[in-house]
């Protein structure tokens, strides 16, 4: 075993535990994340495995395969995050709007029934 392997394994394990501690979500999410983390462990402990898979898929080296997968995953998660953020922004806007309207200040009015204009 090379020294890098326990380091990577520990990092993975920590991420895995943190994920389950703080981001408990639906069953499908859990199954998927367990599979991904297992694949990560396998790749760390048996690096040759990634090369075999890579060859099977027509990619030269296991490292290249990992690189491709990570690129795709990064782009996917960025798009996901972007959509989540814009959804949050919309909710936030609604909330702030509600507060602004609920707390509108009125000036000393001569006629309280008069119309307002923005």
């Amino acid at each position, binding site marked *: 075993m090379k020294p890098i392997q326990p380091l990577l394994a520990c990092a993975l394990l920590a991420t895995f535990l943190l994920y389950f501690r703080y981001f408990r979500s639906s069953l499908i999410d859990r199954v998927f994340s367990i599979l991904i983390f297992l694949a990560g462990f396998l790749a760390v402990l048996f690096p040759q495995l990634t090369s075999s898979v890579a060859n099977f898929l027509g990619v030269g080296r296991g490292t290249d395969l990992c690189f491709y997968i990570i690129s795709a995953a990064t782009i996917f998660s960025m798009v996901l995050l972007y959509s989540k953020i814009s959804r949050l922004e919309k909710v936030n806007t609604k909330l702030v*709007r509600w507060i602004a309207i609920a*707390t509108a200040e*009125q*000036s000393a009015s001569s006629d309280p029934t008069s*119309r*307002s204009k*923005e």
Partner: protein
Amino acid sequence: VKEILTCPDVFVCRHPINLGQGAALRTGIEFATQRGARFIVTFDADGQHQAQEIPRMLKPLLDQECEVVLGSRFMEHGRVENIPLKKYVLLKIAVLFTRLTTGLPLTDTHNGFRAMTVSAANRIEITQNRMAHASQILRSIAALRIPFKEVPVTIRYTEYSMRKGQRLSNAINILWESVAEKI
């Protein structure tokens, strides 16, 4: 704002956190609608617009000529005072760009001075919280075929409005937000 509150019949809605002008317009429109307003006038608060021109903006609405009135500094009888050359060029490019994308025959596309009926105001989409809303409003008008009219207005660029106003580099951000919206 405290000064405004000494005038009669004024309401101030304040966003507890800054969400940008687009969001602020939507809030104002919603508030005015709830209070039973018939017309909405939007107005930049940096001193570039003239309050005495509001009746002129409202007239086409009162005459039921159209549902939206857009202020224009570039059409005949419109005036601009002290406009920096860079800003002039940028605005002209924006006009050209908006004409191409919306097909609306406008002379001034980024003017915050507008008047509209409440029904038009509530149909127009403003989901762009920050500054891309100006183009979004025009796209809405074009898509919904809301009858509109341009009315000449005077824009006065003062030192204060220049300090408060848009930086030119922001045009890039606005373009980006407009493109991102379509995705």
